[in-house]
């Protein structure tokens, strides 16, 4: 955070959250809570097959049912592009299949949408999906990523002649040296199974097309990017599209995407001239909202007898599923960037092979690629400790990057700016009474309860950045990684902050209000934070990857700082003092040395909006914008979890 040294009073304080009153009284507005006049409900006809040719689709019986307005299939949708995928890695060949929101000719995973039924009653549309008769000619299926690479495996996409999507590597070129220097080399096959982010709010969207303007309300983490994608697929000018993320009930990466149902709702709303709402069931969510992880890692670690690590190689087999969603093939790359963990390892390399299977795509989920790296390196460290016969804590300490080494460049070429890994581990050991946990473990064991005790250290890239490294000519993501903020002081002195982030539980209404309040010397209760609406704020990148406070919060801080600077110049001008002598204290701008001389923010903004007496050349008003493109945000910590389970009975995490 850019410090100002002036009047920092609310950042760091514990406040009751500003966003809570509506949420605890049932007054929040989530996407499914909204209805529009003339609105139609949508229900999707989905494939029960993992892989099949569609031989026919018969919709007339469904369309003839009472209350059914239309049944649409792929050819009824006027869309110029399929679902976007944002990774074009320089110098890497990647097999990219077309991915249309409704299946064209073939289905490649269970749950793939084949058609959509639209009607006035939410139960009736579901009934009608059962009357859409789709004939499938089943094709051979492959769901095991290792089997998918074998010769003769069924092919998910015939046209590529292989299920391999791409290969990508990062790190040391001379791993042989690491094995030569090692006294022992251990190898493990580590499976990081498929998971689901599963927020409690399923996805939903509501699209309205009116007189050439499209509005989409959606459970999304990325309203601005979604608008850009819709401009392409709907062939509309971006200024005529508005995307709103109202209250969103958690996401964990699953809503960092543009989904087929959003595109279908928009195309159907335009075609039918009626608003269209779709709300996912939990069963749909589990099958057709992005999954995560699903790596098989073949890992090799070289060590000296004393536990010093000489090298680490991770061969990642990433099961990407049948198609790409927004970031599907790049997610495993993030494993490579943090493969070193907190350790000083002279040689580290990650090689990734992506593979198609007949499953739903994987994509960002809670840490997106980085927890996979932590899992690998921490399991290997534990395994090595057991093999060599030293304590897990000692092997960690032996290999930590020491505090004095920072900034430290690790073998994959990433520079860690700062860290104190011994410090965080000390803190963990101080907080967790392992002897007591172990004593309890023996006691519990006698009662038939099994407890596992473990801990882990980690190094994460939080808030992907900077743009020039992650972007098109660096890692190859077709986007920037900055964030925007507007801080607008109203004539009365209250403040509205617009952020390009799109929080869904992170509490940014409160934390950004704290940040924005401090600099102009006001209080968070008169700072409103607006987010998730492409029509109200500047373009922004959304909320994901632990970036919103680190990057979005900093842009709020910088915009507020600019507001403070302008306010100081106004105060200095009006009180005939030098701008450097103006301080923010006790909710007022005062002149250093004469605390009785001062102006409140309301007085300053009044002067700014009624510009009778502003410094020469100063524009009226009190509002500033920042688009902030960060360097490397990063974090590290340790944690411990123990879990007790009884077969078939409850477990208590602590």
């Amino acid at each position, binding site marked *: 955070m850019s410090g100002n040294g002036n009047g920092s009073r609310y950042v760091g304080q514990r406040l009751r959250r500003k966003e809570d009153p509506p949420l605890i009284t*049932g007054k929040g507005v989530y996407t*499914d809570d909204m209805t529009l006049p003339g609105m139609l409900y949508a229900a999707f006809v989905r494939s029960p097959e993992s892989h099949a040719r569609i031989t026919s689709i018969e919709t007339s019986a469904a369309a003839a049912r009472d209350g059914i307005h239309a049944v649409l299939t792929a050819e009824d949708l006027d869309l110029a592009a399929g679902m976007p995928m944002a990774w074009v890695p320089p110098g890497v060949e990647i097999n990219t299949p077309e991915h249309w929101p409704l299946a064209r000719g073939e289905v490649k995973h269970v749950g793939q949408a084949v058609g959509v039924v639209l009607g006035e009653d*939410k139960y009736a549309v579901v009934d009608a999906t059962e009357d859409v008769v789709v004939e499938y000619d089943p094709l051979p299926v492959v769901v095991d990523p290792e089997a998918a690479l074998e010769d003769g495996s069924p092919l998910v996409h015939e046209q590529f002649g292989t299920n391999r999507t791409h290969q990508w590597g990062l790190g040391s070129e001379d791993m042989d040296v690491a094995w030569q220097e090692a006294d022992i080399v251990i190898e493990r096959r580590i499976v990081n199974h498929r998971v689901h982010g599963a927020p*409690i709010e399923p996805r939903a969207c509501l699209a309205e097309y009116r007189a050439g303007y499209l509005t989409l309300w959606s459970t999304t983490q990325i309203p601005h990017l979604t608008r850009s994608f819709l401009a392409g697929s709907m062939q509309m000018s971006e200024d005529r599209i508005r995307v709103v993320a109202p209250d969103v009930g958690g996401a964990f990466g699953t809503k960092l995407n543009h989904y087929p149902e959003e595109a279908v709702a928009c195309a159907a709303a335009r075609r039918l001239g009626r608003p269209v709402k779709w709300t996912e069931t*939990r069963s749909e969510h589990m099958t057709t909202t992005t999954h995560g992880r699903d790596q098989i890692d073949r890992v090799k670690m070289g060590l000296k007898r004393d536990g010093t690590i000489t090298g680490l190689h991770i061969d990642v087999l990433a099961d990407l599923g049948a198609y790409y969603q927004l970031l599907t093939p790049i997610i495993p790359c993030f494993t490579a960037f943090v493969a070193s963990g907190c350790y000083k390892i002279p040689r580290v390399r990650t090689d990734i092979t992506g593979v198609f299977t007949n499953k739903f795509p994987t994509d960002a989920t809670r840490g997106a690629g980085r927890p996979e790296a932590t899992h690998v390196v921490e399991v290997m460290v534990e395994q090595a400790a057991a093999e060599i016969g030293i304590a897990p804590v000692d092997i960690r300490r032996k290999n930590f990057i020491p505090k004095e080494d920072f900034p430290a460049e690790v073998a994959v070429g990433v520079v860690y700016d700062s860290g104190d890994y011994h410090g965080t581990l000390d803190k963990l050991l101080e907080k967790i*009474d392992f002897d007591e946990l172990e004593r309890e473990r023996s006691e519990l064991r006698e009662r038939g309860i099994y407890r596992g005790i473990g801990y882990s250290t980690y190094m994460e890239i939080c808030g992907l950045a900077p743009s020039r490294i992650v972007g098109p000519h660096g890692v190859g993501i077709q986007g920037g990684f900055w964030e925007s903020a507007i801080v607008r002081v109203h004539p009365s002195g209250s403040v509205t902050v617009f952020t390009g982030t799109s929080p869904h539980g992170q509490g940014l209404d409160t934390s950004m209000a704290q940040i924005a309040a401090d600099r102009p010397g006001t209080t968070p209760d008169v700072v409103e934070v607006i987010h998730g609406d492409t029509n109200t704020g500047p373009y922004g990148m959304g909320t994901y990857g632990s970036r919103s406070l680190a990057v979005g919060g900093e842009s709020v801080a910088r915009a507020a700082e600019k507001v403070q600077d302008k306010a100081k110049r106004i105060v200095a001008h009006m009180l005939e003092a030098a701008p450097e002598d103006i301080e923010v204290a006790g909710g007022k701008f005062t002149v250093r040395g004469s605390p009785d001389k001062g102006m409140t923010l309301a007085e300053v903004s009044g002067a700014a909006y009624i510009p009778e007496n502003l410094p020469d050349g100063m524009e009226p008003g009190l509002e500033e914008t920042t688009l902030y493109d960060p360097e490397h945000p990063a974090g590290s910590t340790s944690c411990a979890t123990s879990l*007790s389970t009884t077969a078939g009975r409850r477990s208590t995490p602590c």
Partner: protein
Amino acid sequence: MAPVRVSLDVNGTTYEREVEPRLLLVHFLRDHLGLTGTHVGCDTSNCGACTVHLNGEAVKSCTVLAVQADGAQVTTIEGLGGPGDALHPVQEAFWEHHGLQCGYCTPGMIMAAADLLARNSDPSEAEVREALAGNLCRCTGYHNIVKAVMAAAKATGRAEAAPPPPPGDPTVPVTGVGA
């Protein structure tokens, strides 16, 4: 199927409506009465986001038909607080103790917790966890939810009310973990 006439008292107001016999109570509340504070998070009666009080007891309103609630008294999150904007002690405690993040599970959590406190004014932590076992939250990790419910129990100060029921199953101790 022919619609059926039902009459329900919801948050103190009587509503008469013609409904399909298969209409779920949660959809009656949300779509017919516009009480969208009661949420739907699953289709398997797992998540508890839809919890309301039916004749004073917590139920999952996705698992009750509107016709089954004919003649009953229903309280939803919108009707839990007192007159004006007064918050129920459980709502107050969720706010104070950061018992929510995205807020989607929250109405159901609060209704389940309020039901517990109506039956047991001085629950142990184990009893709170047991009572909320049917409500899922993906954001918070439950810690602050439990803290909020315990605090609400204290705040209502009704310890002298009915004696607490016998303790539930022995749970695994959570000592050994520092503050």
